[in-house]
């Protein structure tokens, strides 16, 4: 674990050098930006919110310390809700609850332990359930950019012949990337950040991925950070995931994506490091935000899922997870599948770290139309990190650096990581893109989401049917039949798209 002081000093000293070098040597692409006066990034979190999140990061908590999600029983009116809330020491007002559907988020600064808060609420007869607002993490390990164009993963899946059958899918299908965002505007924004000595206003440029046509981005929404319909990816994870699902293909630029004709719905529910840093400074808090790869609350995840389902998405990708079960998330996934949406969920990267059951992936086992996705490496063997368990349903390439080094990871275009690496950068930019290697079940899940989008483009609209076809046509790996490492086996997009013939 790095010390905060060393972290700050290192960034200050290397800032100028790194920016100059990266600008000169990185093979990246940047679209032309608008030259209007940059607007400011607008955040909704308070200083208390940011402090709570920073506290969670520092203490390695798996939930926001003073927040709980509560669902009241059907028919309980506001006075009933208020009666339940009176059981808490702070006696919060029911009118102060923040709602998403029938779930409310309650912030109670007087009780920093959300597990106690939720336990107190569960005792009340008006409450159906109450749980901490769990923190999810994107399930990948970002790495320095490289420029290999070899996508072994698509070759392993015989994608070129799959595209003969369904070339990129249909633009009538929308895939929601519920993640750290996919930038939807070419614009610069001003933001407050810590420059090592004081809070300073800086201009931060953003750009749409030049290898993901802007007209393919639909109904963006940010639930976690700069709340609104402008989505900015300050991390690169969501963009990488979206590139696997549907990066522009056959355009002589960068890499390919699976469903390269479908619409992409950027739904931002995960805050990257720079989201947190900017919010931290905007809240007037001095210093750097603790090092983190970002986080997402189960409340925001659930909101994002419901939003995607309500706004035309046919497939949702969830490359995120954590060790705690959230009924709020489970309800949201069930809601989405009930509306005809297929949900691909990363199985988790905890195999070498105790292999705790991961959520929301573990919910997929009981929901026909949602699939938990494990990862394989270049040799199509179980990736060292990929969580296993009875909830794993299918496997897809997720990369494995122990199986081919950097070239054994999943390469897609995303924002240039060197431009915003918090280990070296204090004034980041997010307007340049590069082919980048990530690994994780985060990378495996969008393979399934993309293939589901191709299947739905062929008219298979029932998410449970999509799951059944993917399972039935998978190539068995590992122990014969279904197993905990690979589920039904390695997804076979061409075989799935071929459907069933008369005898075979």
């Amino acid at each position, binding site marked *: 674990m790095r010390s905060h002081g060393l972290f700050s000093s290192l960034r200050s000293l290397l800032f100028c050098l790194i920016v100059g070098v990266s600008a000169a040597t990185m093979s990246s692409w940047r679209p032309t930006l608008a030259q209007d006066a940059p607007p400011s990034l607008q955040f909704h979190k308070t200083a208390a919110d940011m402090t709570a999140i920073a506290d969670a990061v520092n203490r390695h908590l798996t939930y926001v310390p003073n927040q709980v999600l509560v669902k009241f029983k059907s028919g309980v009116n506001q006075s009933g809700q208020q009666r339940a809330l009176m059981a808490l020491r702070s006696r919060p007002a029911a009118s102060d609850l923040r709602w998403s559907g029938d779930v409310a988020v309650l912030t109670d600064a007087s009780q920093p332990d959300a597990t106690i808060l939720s336990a107190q609420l569960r005792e009340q007869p008006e409450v159906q359930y109450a749980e901490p607002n769990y923190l999810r993490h994107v399930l990948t390990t970002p790495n320095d950019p490289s420029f290999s164009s070899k996508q072994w993963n698509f070759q392993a899946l015989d994608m070129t012949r799959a595209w*003969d059958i369904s070339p990129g899918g249909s633009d009538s299908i929308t895939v929601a990337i519920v993640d750290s965002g996919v930038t939807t505007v070419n614009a610069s924004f001003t933001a407050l950040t810590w420059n090592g000595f004081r809070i300073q206003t800086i201009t931060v440029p953003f750009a749409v991925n030049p290898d993901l046509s802007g007209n393919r981005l639909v109904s963006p929404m940010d639930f976690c950070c700069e709340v609104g319909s402008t989505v900015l990816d300050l991390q690169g994870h969501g963009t990488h995931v979206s590139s696997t699902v549907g990066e522009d293909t056959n355009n002589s630029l960068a890499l390919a994506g699976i469903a390269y004709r479908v619409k992409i719905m950027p739904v931002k529910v995960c805050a990257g490091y720079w989201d947190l840093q900017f919010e931290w400074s905007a809240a007037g808090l001095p210093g750097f935000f603790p090092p983190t790869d970002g986080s997402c609350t189960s409340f925001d995840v659930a909101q994002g899922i419901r939003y995607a389902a309500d706004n035309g998405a046919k497939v949702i990708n969830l490359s995120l997870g954590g060790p705690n079960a959230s009924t709020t998330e489970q309800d949201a996934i069930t809601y989405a599948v009930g509306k005809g949406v297929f949900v691909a969920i990363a199985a988790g990267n905890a195999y070498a770290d105790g292999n705790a059951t991961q959520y929301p992936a573990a919910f997929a086992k009981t929901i026909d139309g949602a699939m938990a996705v494990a990862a394989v490496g270049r040799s199509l063997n179980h990736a060292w990190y990929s969580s296993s368990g009875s909830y794993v349903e299918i496997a897809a390439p997720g990369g494995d650096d122990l199986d081919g080094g950097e070239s054994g990871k999943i390469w897609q275009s995303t924002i240039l990581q060197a431009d915003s690496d918090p280990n070296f950068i204090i004034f980041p930019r997010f307007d340049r893109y590069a082919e980048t290697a990530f690994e994780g079940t985060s990378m495996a899940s969008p393979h399934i989401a993309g293939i589901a989008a191709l299947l739905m483009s*062929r008219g298979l609209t*029932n998410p449970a049917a999509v799951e059944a076809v993917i399972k039935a046509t998978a190539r068995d790996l590992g122990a014969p039949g279904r197993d905990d490492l690979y589920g039904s086996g390695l997804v076979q997009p061409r075989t799935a798209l*071929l459907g*069933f*013939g*008369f*005898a*075979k």
Partner: protein
Amino acid sequence: MNLMRRFTLGLCLLAISASASAAQDQTPRPRVRVLSDNTIVWRPTLLTPAIILNAGAVLEVVGRRGNFYDVLAPSPDDPGGIRGFVAIAQVEHVAGSPLPPGATRETDALAPSAPAQPVTQTPAAPRSPARTSVRGFALAGYGWPLAHQTFNAVFDQSGAFWAGGGAEVQLGSGLFFLGSAQHMSQTGERVFVFDGVVTKAGIADSISITPIEATVGYRFVRSRHRPYVGAGAGQFRYRETFAFADPSEEIRTSFTSYHAIAGLEWRTARWMWTAVEVRFTHVPNALNGNLATAFDEHNLGGVETRVKVLFGK
């Protein structure tokens, strides 16, 4: 001495023979009366008439062969009568004479144990001689497969037209041996199936099936209309291909089949017969893909009705 012994033995034998002959002459023979005019008394070969008699003629019965009496018929050319065979059904017992051979009561003579050949036909031998014939045929049919949901899903119909042909060897006993081949081909669309709901995958799928079969059967002789049944085994040669398939993905295989047939044929011209036939085939474990699993249909057989046109005697 030796010569003497032989002479004595010869005399004895002659005496025995003469006494036996006298005794035989003294026993009255059974007699029968011809029932209708133009009744034919056949020569022993049963190929040519010996004499043609009118109703009322009385014949002496000296024996019986099958459905025929061995008789002595009166002849204007031969006072001793003419020997021949007359169908039992064409005569009646003359009361007062002994019963003919094989008859135990008065009525038995009028009810032969097996139906006699009509007098107008060329008489069959008391045991029909085996006559072998060979016929070729063409057929067309329509089949309803056991895997009707699978057919419906891919081809939007649960039946198929068949065409083919073959040849048969028929024995006089009614047994026949038949070899046939037929063919069916259909083009439909590959599908997705979930919970019984079929979704088209938009990919053309073509199959062809060529059963090659051998059948053993029995044909019942009933004048002009001849019912028949049979059963046998064969091979269903199966081929399937689809759009986007590479050669290694084409399916070329064969399955063992079992079948039973029942039909009725009738003569429509001197050398031509027409038959309608129902055929049931059983082709177990032929379908094992995802579609077969989804519908739990694994048998490629079914029921087929077909029309056959046969050429030959």
